[in-house]
């Protein structure tokens, strides 16, 4: 962890236009929750749709993608990463610092709004609000690590990330049940399910599978990102 790298990363995240998009995501979730609360007779019935499908299924991966790639891919793309790399700093420090910022931002902008939205919809009933927030915490961390790796590994990180989150998890996962086993969203739901009162949250992956997979993805992505960053080349423009 390096304080200067963290400071530069935070300012880079908030200083760019994508910073506005970061606020749109939680605002949208809260807006939908408020509308549901005001209009539905039993808003708690909408929890699975608003918190599970919209929140964890769509908004969380989009937010994590913007944050995870935004903390490093933009610097690699425009070449300013040189100023971090041309320093006697171990590469894994840079990666872990940027990942810490990405996770913190994802938690702040996704898990906190998720908790508020959950409380708006269900109050404290069945522990649903806390469960979804906890699911968002673990899934948000795994998404951040994966998307940060994509940001280091490919120049098309956003496309690759969207491909995973929207095509694999949402589209393929909808039609091919087996695909859900390899879905961060489902792992997060599995954690949420284990926390809430039985029967209030559904998930397709067992907790004993979800937790190890979450850990493996987060740790392996971080290690790979550090290795990739260590060997990052700047091809000549010639």
């Amino acid at each position: 962890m390096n304080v200067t790298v963290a400071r530069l990363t935070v300012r880079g995240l908030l200083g760019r236009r994508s910073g506005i998009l970061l606020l749109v995501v939680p605002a949208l979730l809260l807006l939908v929750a408020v509308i549901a609360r005001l209009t539905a007779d039993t808003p708690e019935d909408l929890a699975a749709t608003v918190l599970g499908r919209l929140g964890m299924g769509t908004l969380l991966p989009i937010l994590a993608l913007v944050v995870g790639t935004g903390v490093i891919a933009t610097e690699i793309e425009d070449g300013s990463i040189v100023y971090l790399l041309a320093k006697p700093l171990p590469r894994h420090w840079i990666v872990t610092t940027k990942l810490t910022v990405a996770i913190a931002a994802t938690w702040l902008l996704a898990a906190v709004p998720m908790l508020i939205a959950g409380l708006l919809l269900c109050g404290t009933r069945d522990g649903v609000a806390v469960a979804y927030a906890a699911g968002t915490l673990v899934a948000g961390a795994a998404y951040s690590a994966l998307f940060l790796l994509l940001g280091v590994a490919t120049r098309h990180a956003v496309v690759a990330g969207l491909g995973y989150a929207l095509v694999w998890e949402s589209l393929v996962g909808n039609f091919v049940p087996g695909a859900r086993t390899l879905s961060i969203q489902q792992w997060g739901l599995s954690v949420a399910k284990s926390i809430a009162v039985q029967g209030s949250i559904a998930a397709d992956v067992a907790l004993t599978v979800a937790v190890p997979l979450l850990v493996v993805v987060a740790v392996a992505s971080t290690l790979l990102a550090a290795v990739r960053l260590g060997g990052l080349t700047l091809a000549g423009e010639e």
Partner: protein
Amino acid sequence: MAVITIDRVSRWFGNVVAVNDVSMQIGPGVTGLLGPNGAGKSTLIHMMSGFLPPSAGEVALDGVPIWRNQEVYRAIGLVPERESMYDYLTGWEFVLANAELHGLADPAAAARRALGLVEMEYAQDRKTGTYSKGMKQRVKMASALVHDPAVLLLDEPFNGMDPRQRLQLMELLRRFGAEGRTVLFSSHILEEVEQLARHIEVVVAGRHAASGDFRRIRRLMTNRPHRYLVRSSDDRRLAAALIADGSTAGIEFDGQERALRIQAVDFQGFTTLLPRVAKDAGIRLYTVSPADESLESVFSYLVAS
């Protein structure tokens, strides 16, 4: 004493050979890395700065390989060609961040000193995104100097600078060279290198074409015939008057261009002869342009010799 050694280094990208079996040593003082665009200068500098592994051979600083060795950055200051540099930071914040990243004991003092060296204190509170190209270049210099490195690598540092900024930067680099630092800069502009570096390394098409004292290499260049394209109010009369002088080796009338192609043996002699002859004969000169002074032709001459 910091010495960068490039030992039988080649670098290829797929089928394209960017650097071909180059060996050179860059020692203290100012060295110019000269070559036309696309010659492999940036590739060489990327390898010297640890951002590209050689496909073959080794690049080392004082005997220690540079690739995948972050410790070398304690001794190396790098001024990259690309302009992006955290546009949302002020000049001060940018240089200070660089000092902090180096883990210096007093980063604020180091940042102040570095900004003073490049005379950028007056704009240090402005965002770097609002800087002109020359200002960005100087702040990049400050960030490279902040840890007082023994080696300074600059990729095309004069690009986009106005003449005053260029002179300032040259003066600065000269001073660093005189202090015993190893300063290497790349350029495709002959005059820039001529003004700044005594020692030059020339690369052409990925190969090491020449190495050594600039004056010796320049002499090789001045010994060759110079070609000019001249248009005047009376080309034929001008040709007759010029050929009578010994500094002119040959003249051809180019009907298509409607101009004279003149080959001069004595560069100095010809440049004083031409206006004098034209004036004496009452001929007006419309165009006088060197036909083979482009860097590429200078290099091809060097390679041929």
